[in-house]
């Protein structure tokens, strides 16, 4: 896979619950995407004040023949960049770089898989689920969010899985609580071999922990602030244990965003643990 930069035409933008779903013609990107890849989109216009691209998981891609492939993302209006993006209209042009990152690892055997999505974090899990099903895997979903409008893809999950459990923190849909309240029961019931998760860092940490306790392998797509998305700036790092047992500050845009849940030092994210390769930092320049 080689990422490319394209100016893609907006084919459509529409609201889905509290999110926006954006479809962009992105030939060269679409064809290469695998589940878990993300794209980095420039926001604010060519002379705008926002220089940093915004990262979005690819929700799905489609081959549209004459148009070239399209990429769909699902995003929340959060700050200035996503506000700008929410104002693009059909036929506008958006600058997209992708596909980026390491996708979810797929099992070779037809194993039992659980997908855990928090908020818009479910977006990359649907094409993943499809591919797992094609390989004969059993797929169950757990989707959680703060409130009903922040859930994404409950119906879609139902169409492609054995079961869907829903949790909301305010109880507006499904069980009141968090995904990790229902996850252990589900894992035990299905005897899941692999947990695929995408969502906020706190959720991922908890999911990785549950999976480890119940003997499942976990694959977590993290969300670290990224300045470049392509591996050149070193802003997006987190402490990850390598095959050699050594902790390194690893770029989540290149070596992630998908990591093995048991390799990320979740409790140390935001710090440089003392045993990290190259630590401790003597006070240094930028």
């Amino acid at each position, binding site marked *: 896979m*080689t*990422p*490319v*930069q*394209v*100016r893609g035409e907006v084919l459509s933008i529409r609201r889905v619950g509290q999110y926006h779903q954006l479809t962009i013609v992105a030939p060269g990107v679409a064809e290469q995407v695998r589940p878990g890849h993300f794209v980095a989109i*420039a926001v604010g216009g060519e002379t705008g*004040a*926002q*220089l*940093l*691209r915004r990262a979005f998981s690819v929700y799905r891609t489609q081959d549209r023949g004459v148009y070239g492939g399209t990429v769909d993302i699902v995003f929340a209006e959060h700050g200035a960049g996503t506000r700008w993006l929410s104002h693009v209209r059909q036929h506008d042009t958006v*600058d997209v*770089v992708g596909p980026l990152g390491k996708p979810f690892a797929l099992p070779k055997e037809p194993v039992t898989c659980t997908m855990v999505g928090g908020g818009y974090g479910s977006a990359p899990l649907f094409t993943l689920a499809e591919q797992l099903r094609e390989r004969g895997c059993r797929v169950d979903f757990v989707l959680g969010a703060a409130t009903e409008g922040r859930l994404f893809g409950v119906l879609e999950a139902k169409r492609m899985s054995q079961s869907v459990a829903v949790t909301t923190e305010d109880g507006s849909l499904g069980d009141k609580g968090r995904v990790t309240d229902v996850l252990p029961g589900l894992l035990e019931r299905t005897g899941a071999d692999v947990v695929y998760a995408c969502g906020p860092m706190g959720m991922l940490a908890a999911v990785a922990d549950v999976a480890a306790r119940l003997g499942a392998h976990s694959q977590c797509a993290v969300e*670290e*602030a990224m*300045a*470049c*998305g*392509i*591996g*050149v*700036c*070193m*802003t*997006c*790092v*987190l402490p990850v244990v390598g095959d050699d047992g050594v902790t*390194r*500050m690893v770029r989540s845009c*290149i070596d992630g965003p998908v990591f093995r849940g048991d390799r990320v030092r979740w409790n140390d*994210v*935001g*710090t*440089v643990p003392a045993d*990290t*390769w*190259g*630590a*401790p*930092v*003597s*006070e*240094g*320049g*930028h």
Partner: protein
Amino acid sequence: MTRLTRVITPESSEIALPDVDMSTRLAGVTLPNPVMTASGCAGYGRELDQFFDITALGAVVTKSIMLQPRSGRPTPRMAETPSGMLNSIGLQGPGIEEFVSRDLRWLEERGARVIVSIAGGSADEYVRLAQRLRHSSAVTAIEVNISCPNVEDRGLVFACDPVASSTVVEGVRRNSAPGVPVFAKLSPDVTDIVAIAKACVDAGADGLSMINTLLGVVIDSDTMRPHLGGVTGGLSGPAIRPVAVRAVWQVHQALPDVPVIGMGGIRTGADAFEFILAGASAVEVGTTVFNDPSAPMRVSYELQQLLGARDFASLGDAVGFAHRPDDEPA
């Protein structure tokens, strides 16, 4: 206007380039193109090579390398700011050995010209880095990042003091291969950048790179604490361009014969042209790469078009052109 050559841009559109001699001389070394990447904004070249042919650049300026492997600072390491960003990476890197055997080697095999940026916590560290690079054929020039805290002097940044700056520069120059120019990279966070520039040149710097980032702080209004793990960070991007152009202007005025590599907020060919007119012989594109990974090539093409449109036969003719006397026309 002059003859046009058609080229294919990184984004696969065809554009016409006027016939301008874009080569530039930097203290004895000639580069075919004045546009380079800025240290810390292009890694060691490999990732950007996916977006455009890095051998077409003047040079790849590598992320500042230190003697030892370094894990860098805790996250968050960046904050977006109006037309800029604040970063606090803390010079994460593999250390000089791994850099030379893996990254520098890759660049050499790839055929890219390389300016190696070095950083240290003491004058001695800089010297040892220079010694390690002395026999490498892959090094086109050395850029000495002196915007580092001097651990032996209460963490005072070398670049903020003429004496500390010249000690470092003198040591690097003495221990580098004679044909390899040494550029000192200056910080704008000083009262008198010309004084620092002169001190570096007197200590043997063959040229000057400027500017490094400005010291800044962003407070997060949710946590109500500094946003960066490292509290302070370096401000870069178009926001700082007028400060950078001013630094180049002042230093070129005072030291017209010293080659300058200009940088700070270059986003377009017109921005690069500003630096050239102010006195820079080459430019580096930094933060803009995060916005547009093919920016260095785009900037180079746009600059060439601008030079052609203004009837410059060569880049060299435009260097410092804004300093011409009032009565001299364009």
